[in-house]
């Protein structure tokens, strides 16, 4: 307890003196053990890369894309409303290029919304889906892929090969990015992890999985275009909202509310960082 108190007091002082120390050179990482490590890791990663192309060429995500397209184009809500009335930021019914230009400010709801949040909003508003039902099972499992996940996959696919261009014009769009940047770096929980613990450096891996450095555009796009993605484990589609949710689980945090401001802010940070990069999703992931 005594230790905790003294640390907290130091923290209080640190709050004030941050600016003075911000320029301090980065602390060196502890020297690696001088063991002659078996040179396996490059081999593994290279082997995965060779077969990535094969996997991406025939991505079962297309099956969900087709389902989503059918819902977007043909499903009717109460009173005959359709998703043609849904404005994803580029005008009612415009899908092409919309995915890579969210999160964005939507004046009709007075909120910054990421793609998933906006699509769910539209499916509730126009197609008569109940938000509480969607919140009951927001993510796919091996028994069921919720309709909104298929629609997200369709909308995302309509931005394939387009440049990511999340807007930073409205004050609230800038605010979302800045808050997202803070959440990204915030360490807490029993393991002291932040998003940056795994995604703040170049060339790191968890087990065999590469960890993109989400502070860099060319790396951020790798994470961005992975989701929505077909997850080989389980064999179903998962979205960016899921990716954020499960990262926080692994981070040993409590659970972020689905479609909450915190997740939109994080997605704004990641997307804006990836701005200018070409989107190649939907993805296929381990």
């Amino acid at each position: 307890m005594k230790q905790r108190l003294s640390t907290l007091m130091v923290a209080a002082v640190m709050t004030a003196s941050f600016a003075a120390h911000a320029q301090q050179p980065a602390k060196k990482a502890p020297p690696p053990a001088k063991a002659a490590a078996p040179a396996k890791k490059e081999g593994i990663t290279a082997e995965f890369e060779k077969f990535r192309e094969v996997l991406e060429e025939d991505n079962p995500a297309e099956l969900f894309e087709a389902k989503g397209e059918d819902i977007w184009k043909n499903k009717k809500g109460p009173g005959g409303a359709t998703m043609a009335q849904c404005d994803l930021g580029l005008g009612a019914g415009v899908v092409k290029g919309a995915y890579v230009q969210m999160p964005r400010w939507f004046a009709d709801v007075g909120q910054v919304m990421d793609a998933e949040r906006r699509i769910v909003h539209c499916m509730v508003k126009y197609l008569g889906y109940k938000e509480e039902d969607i919140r009951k099972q927001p993510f796919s499992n091996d028994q069921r892929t919720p309709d909104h996940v298929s629609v997200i996959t369709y909308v995302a696919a309509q931005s394939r090969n387009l440049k990511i261009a999340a807007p930073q014009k409205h004050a609230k769009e800038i605010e979302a990015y800045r808050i997202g940047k803070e959440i990204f770096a915030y360490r807490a929980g029993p393991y002291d992890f932040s998003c940056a613990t795994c995604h703040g450096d170049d060339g790191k891996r968890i087990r065999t999985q590469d960890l993109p450095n989400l502070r860099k555009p060319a790396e951020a796009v790798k994470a961005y275009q992975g989701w929505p993605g077909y997850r080989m484990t389980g064999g179903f589609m998962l979205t960016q909202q899921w990716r954020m949710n499960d990262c926080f689980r692994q981070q040993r945090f409590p659970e972020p509310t689905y479609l909450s401001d915190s997740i939109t802010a994080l997605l704004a940070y990641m997307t804006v960082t990836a701005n200018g990069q070409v989107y190649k999703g939907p993805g296929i992931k381990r």
Partner: protein
Amino acid sequence: MTAMKKTVVCAAAALACSAVLADEIRNYRAEAVAMMKRDFKTRGIATADRVHEDGLQAVCNRTSDNPPKDIAARLERDQLEAVKYPTDGKLMGDWKAGEKLAQSGRGMTWSDKAGVPGGGNCYNCHQISPTETSFGTIGPSLYQFGKIRGNTPEMQKYAYGKIWNAKAFNLCSAMPRFGHAGALTESQIKDLVALLLDPQSPVNSK
């Protein structure tokens, strides 16, 4: 943050702080933390209070993991003093049990059950035994850890302390404080020490 508060904080630290910069950073950080406290909810064993930073996290969060040397040294010393070493004086357990623990990535998530012992998560970040080719690179390779350093009582104490609380040696290390956080028990840490230092462990094989 109001202008008055900002002035007080700057004055208190007696620093010529850039008001604009400090304000922006503090402002967004505070907003981010407030937002997370609103949005993050208890699920299973992962309780909502986990989004509150503790003192050490606060220091690292406010310095982008680069605390001033003098402060870091003092806090590392505090952490080291709080390491609980086994009362029986034995620091090495069973390396085979240690290898199993090192493999497991479970523990303390909202999908883990209360009372079920967690894993060490070691291979997620470290190379360890040469037989396991699926290893992460967030932390340094631990292959031949004991072969290089020897198996002295001092080295055992260091390894135990490092696993119990990595922050006692590097204040803002990415490695969790497994003992301090209650993520690993005393006997589990002993098994991991054995995995690293036991001459029979594959970690130290040719």
